[in-house]
């Protein structure tokens, strides 16, 4: 009899420590959301490199919350707690930028520096969304209001740049990192669906059919000087943007100099992949049920979409302005690529342009504003951190 009692007690103890007894209903909803994201990543291939680790991290933390536990006198912290320090301390996003820099060819931007203006105009979404996030509290919906720092972190979703969004949020509003990162990466994956209707609504058939002149060839010396000049100027003028822009340009200098191919290859492949795993899993692990399932998350999702739409519209409208002043030499469709989301947004410009004129190749022209958008959103991030930090 005593053996049976002990056996039952053991079973009860095991059950009490299991997830079924400790987790609440919100954890199960989050596990469901994580499974949907895994489906989108694997079956639909929506940004799978990031969405897959994010979704898995989300699932893990809701199955076993102590995996993100802080260390105490009695126990060490959870595995993800330590990996998450790279996000919390702002280390991973600049390292991701190092890899992006090593993969990026700034040639189209150097050949046509006016592309910088389109990259600047597409940051409109960030600042318009900031206003929306500040005023959303006046709607009177319970628990739906944001502080200025939180509004700044939500607004940066409009930069369409995951590492920048994480960098700004980790500095201004780390408590919102989960929903902001998930919204930013989800919308980046949805760029081919979000952008074309806005691009078509704001342009005429004639504007979309413009065939742009071929870009001039860019010499190696120009490509080598570009990262050095950009780093010096931006770091001096806006020091808060220096970690992101500096690492982006270091990666690019390693690529263009041609003398450190081994390091350049590591930055593009192994380092980038390792950081992507750590970043994705730990960002996903911030999406605990009790934090994620709130009116604030719904607000972030709506505001994030607005940020993308306004950013696209800003770029296209500025493209129209350039079309007007250059007497029809610039196709306004390349303006939408200024939102970053490299290279997806440039591909969308190419695709929409070819729908009007199958012989039109806008891809290289759109890559200029696209990479300018990366620099533009890093500058916008620096502005937000310096005003709100």
């Amino acid at each position: 009899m005593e053996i049976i009692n002990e056996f039952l007690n053991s079973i009860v103890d095991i059950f009490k420590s299991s997830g079924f007894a400790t987790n609440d209903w919100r954890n199960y909803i989050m596990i469901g959301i994580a499974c949907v994201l895994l489906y989108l990543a694997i079956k639909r291939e929506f940004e799978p490199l990031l969405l897959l680790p994010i979704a898995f991290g989300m699932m893990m933390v809701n199955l076993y919350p102590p995996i993100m536990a802080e260390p105490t006198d009695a126990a060490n912290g959870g595995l993800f707690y330590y990996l998450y320090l790279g996000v919390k301390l702002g280390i991973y996003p600049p390292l991701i930028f190092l890899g992006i820099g090593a993969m990026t060819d700034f040639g189209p931007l150097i050949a046509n520096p006016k592309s910088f203006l389109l990259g600047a105009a597409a940051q409109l979404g960030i600042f318009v969304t900031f206003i929306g996030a500040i005023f959303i509290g006046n709607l009177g919906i319970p628990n739906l209001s944001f502080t200025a720092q939180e509004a700044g972190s939500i607004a940066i979703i409009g930069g369409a740049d995951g590492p920048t969004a994480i960098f700004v949020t980790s500095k201004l509003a780390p408590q919102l990192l989960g929903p902001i990162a998930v919204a930013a990466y989800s919308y980046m994956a949805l760029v081919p669906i979000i952008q074309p209707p806005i691009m078509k609504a704001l342009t005429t058939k004639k504007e979309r059919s413009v065939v742009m002149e071929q870009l001039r060839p860019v010499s190696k010396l120009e490509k080598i000087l570009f990262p050095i000049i950009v780093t010096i100027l931006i770091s001096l003028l806006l020091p808060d943007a220096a970690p992101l822009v500096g690492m982006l340009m270091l990666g690019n200098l390693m690529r263009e100099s041609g003398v450190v191919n081994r390091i350049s290859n590591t930055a593009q492949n192994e380092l980038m992949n390792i950081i992507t795993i750590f970043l994705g899993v730990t960002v996903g692990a911030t999406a605990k049920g009790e934090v994620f399932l709130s009116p604030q998350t719904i607000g972030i999702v709506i505001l994030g979409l607005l940020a993308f739409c306004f950013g696209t519209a800003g770029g296209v409208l500025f493209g129209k302005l350039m079309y007007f002043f250059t007497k029809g030499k610039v196709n306004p469709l390349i303006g939408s690529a200024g939102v970053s989301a490299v290279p997806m947004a440039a591909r969308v410009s190419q695709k929409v342009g070819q729908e009007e004129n199958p012989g039109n190749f806008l891809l290289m022209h759109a890559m200029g504003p696209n990479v300018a958008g990366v620099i533009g959103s890093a500058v916008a991030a620096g502005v937000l951190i310096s005003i709100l930090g």
Partner: protein
Amino acid sequence: MDPQNEVLLSLTVLLTGLVVVFAMLIFLTIVIKIYGSVIYNTTKKRRESNKPKVEAAPTPAPAPASAPIEVEEGISGEVVAAIAAAVYMTYGVSASRIRSVKRAAANPRSLWGEAGRLENTRPF
């Protein structure tokens, strides 16, 4: 935050953000345009000055007779043409500068193995 402060903060961020982002990127546009055109023009001039000058002559001068290439027996004309093209791509000199084409001493190691070794040891 009271509504007046909300409006003030929103407009400050909107104005400062757009002005700083535009100013910074316009500045970069100007700087890159200037150094780009300086480098482009300099290299263009250099390329033009390096071009051989064409002297005005009523009749075209006969092409200089180039020394025939010594080709080892058993090497086909196609192989020689491929080598000449590779030499041109690598060194930028025409086929007339090639004096001879002959087989190198047989390497006891596998060529792929040698290529791998070179790739790994080149950085050092």
